[in-house]
């Protein structure tokens, strides 16, 4: 039986840097109305995957399909529907929060009258309406992260991609960010979130992929992951993660599939 149409599908994605494989034959599908979690140790290939989706990296091989369109064939227009919060972003010090959001909103082609309302709403919910006219250079780390998040959702994207979104953010800010992510899914969109905060991933994500060495070690709902890992019904995501990554850390079988790809490029 055919399932619901995936809003995002990644098929056999490969990426190498300087002779090292960062992403190795990755395939996954993210459904509409779903918060999809990507977790994994440092260097597992999470950020590389997200950067390929948003067009900041070119894969060596594979397909990324958003709502039926191959994004590598049409590398610009699809970006209108995505929002991206990078890991450890650097914001322009000498703009105010409002100025920065205005620039991003105008580039995202949000109508001017709607942009003002949207900014007011976002800044209020993220508790940034007080310092909104202050220069970003005066913002704390958490305030910067919240402002960057506001910039990533200013145009109400249907696919929101968050790379470690809660680092340095206070509990109220974390709640606001998670609420805004859920708003995206309530509107029918999807969210992909990469995080090292496993308790957050456990509560926020509908499905989770555990990545290691550029591959998916396991993927599914928490219940499915518990079953895969044989970690027990009460196991937390942390228990499951440690068990699965330990198993995935064992020596890999011969890479026949990679050999077949040598010399093949899109």
């Amino acid at each position: 039986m055919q399932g619901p149409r995936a809003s995002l599908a990644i098929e056999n994605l490969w990426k190498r840097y300087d002779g090292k494989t960062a992403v190795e034959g990755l395939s996954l599908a993210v459904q509409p109305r779903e918060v999809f979690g990507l977790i994994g140790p440092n260097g597992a290939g999470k950020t590389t995957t997200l950067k390929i989706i948003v067009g900041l990296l070119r894969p060596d091989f594979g397909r990324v399909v958003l709502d039926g369109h191959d994004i590598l064939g049409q590398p610009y227009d699809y970006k209108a529907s995505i929002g991206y919060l990078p890991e450890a972003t650097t914001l322009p010090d000498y703009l105010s929060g409002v100025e920065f959001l205005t620039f991003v909103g105008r580039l995202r082609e949000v109508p001017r009258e709607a942009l003002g309302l949207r900014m007011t709403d976002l800044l209020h919910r993220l508790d940034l309406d007080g310092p909104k006219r202050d220069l970003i250079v005066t913002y704390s780390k958490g305030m910067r992260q919240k402002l960057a998040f506001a910039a990533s959702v200013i145009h109400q994207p249907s696919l929101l991609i968050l790379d470690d979104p809660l680092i340095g953010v206070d509990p109220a800010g974390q709640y606001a960010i998670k609420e805004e992510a859920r708003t995206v899914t309530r509107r029918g969109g999807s969210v992909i979130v990469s995080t090292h905060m496993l308790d957050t991933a456990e509560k926020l994500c509908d499905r989770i992929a555990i990545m290691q060495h550029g591959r998916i070690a396991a993927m599914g709902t928490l219940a499915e992951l518990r079953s895969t890992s044989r970690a027990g019904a009460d196991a937390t995501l942390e228990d499951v993660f440690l068990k699965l990554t330990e198993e995935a850390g064992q020596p890999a079988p011969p890479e026949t599939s990679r050999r077949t790809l040598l010399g093949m490029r899109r």
Partner: protein
Amino acid sequence: MNVGRIRVVYGFKLRQFFGPVRHSAATIVILGFAAFITLPVVLIVGYFLPDTPAWRSTGLSELLATALSAFLAFDLLFGLSGGTLTHPAEIDFFATSRLRPREYLLADLLFQFTVTDALAVPALLVAGLGLGIRTGQWTAIGSAVLLLLGFAAMGLALGQGVGLLVAAGKRGAKAALIGLVILLMLPAGHMFWPPLPEYAALPFPSTAAAQVVVGLLGLLRGTDITVPAATLGLFAAAVAAVWVWASGRDVFPNLRPTMRIAFGQTDLRKVAMQQEALTRGLSVLTRRISVDLMKGAPLGMMSRFHLVRILRDGSMLIVGLLTGMLVLIGSANRLSDAPTSEVSILTTGWAALMIPMILSFNWNATERPNLWTVAMAPQYLSTYFRGFYRAVALVTVGAGIIGAVAGAVATPLGIVAALVMAVASCGIAVSLMAAIRIPSDAFSLKSVLPFLIVPPISIAIGAPVVAVALLMGSFNPAAWALAIGYAVFVIAIFDRVPARAASRFQL
């Protein structure tokens, strides 16, 4: 192309870059004061330009070609870091929108032109005004200024175009670019080694631009400028072709965050990071030079460590630019009809004072926070600063000698005086940094301290050599013996001072 999006990106870049000016009344006052001081001087220089030896020199076109080649070489070297002035937020939030690469690159090119010309245009216009008042050749001067601005724009477009090819990892692009820079600067060596061809003998765009400018000003008597003008036209067409080809690709995956500072930024850490970002393209050279920390005595190891750090953190870019200016001024002086030794001594002395301060400020911004590693082994703290002093002294004296050789008209004792000053300024600058904790994230009274202390004391320490030269004559053997003895004494003293200052070091 969507003009609205180009305007948004250009507006963002401008507002970010000129942010400190927009938001700080003090910065506006300082800039206004600088303009008030500088522009009348530029006007006077423009007015008296026809009286200078360089203006009447037959080598004027060659000198201008050298300067324009250096400008073009700098644009090409900038291409090594990616060719665009990109703030990290532009990659994260603009390159992930529907913006097209060509829209982004056009906005970036406009921005590069605006920031590079923010200082050059007023200076050129005011100098042109002075020259116009003197000569009355308004049309020729206006045309020359426009041509120089057009040449600058072409250089920027070329730097961006080839930079994109380098960033895309095109095979051989980096090597070709470095080869082009060497080729472009090779004729500058004609001043030192005549068998090398001079610019006038080569169909370089910089030669053509220089000949057209000098021709427009009526200084190339009896020479037709049709050929150089046609060469320049061909160059413009080639640049346009490279740019159109390079900008027609998806460049966003190759954008590099090269723009981290704003005009008037007070955070010296970010200024240092900017230098590093701009020279990252040269990592193919700098990474190959490594330091074996297992070899030799601790002092030698520390000196080598600092030399490699200076090379890698981008400080060498500034040293290189200052040395280039020394060579240009020295060569211009030597080739003029009435070369004077004072020019060489003054410029070498100026570099001797500036380079140690730049290097020590860069150290304070980037390395000081990392010094907990050395502070945990305090017995090596004095060795660390002694090594730092030796590395800075080596770089400064090296730059000074290159400048002195380029000038080649200074009296030897004058050069010794400048080099004694260099050693003293290195010792004092490094000692100050060791003894005083200067904040690197904002200007403070302490930040000004090295500028108040280093130059006067260093000049005072160099003064006895000048006195000996004046009183006993530059070629008197006794004067030489005295000067060399004094230089050795100064070197020996300052080899110890930074180590003493290290005892006051606080992280």
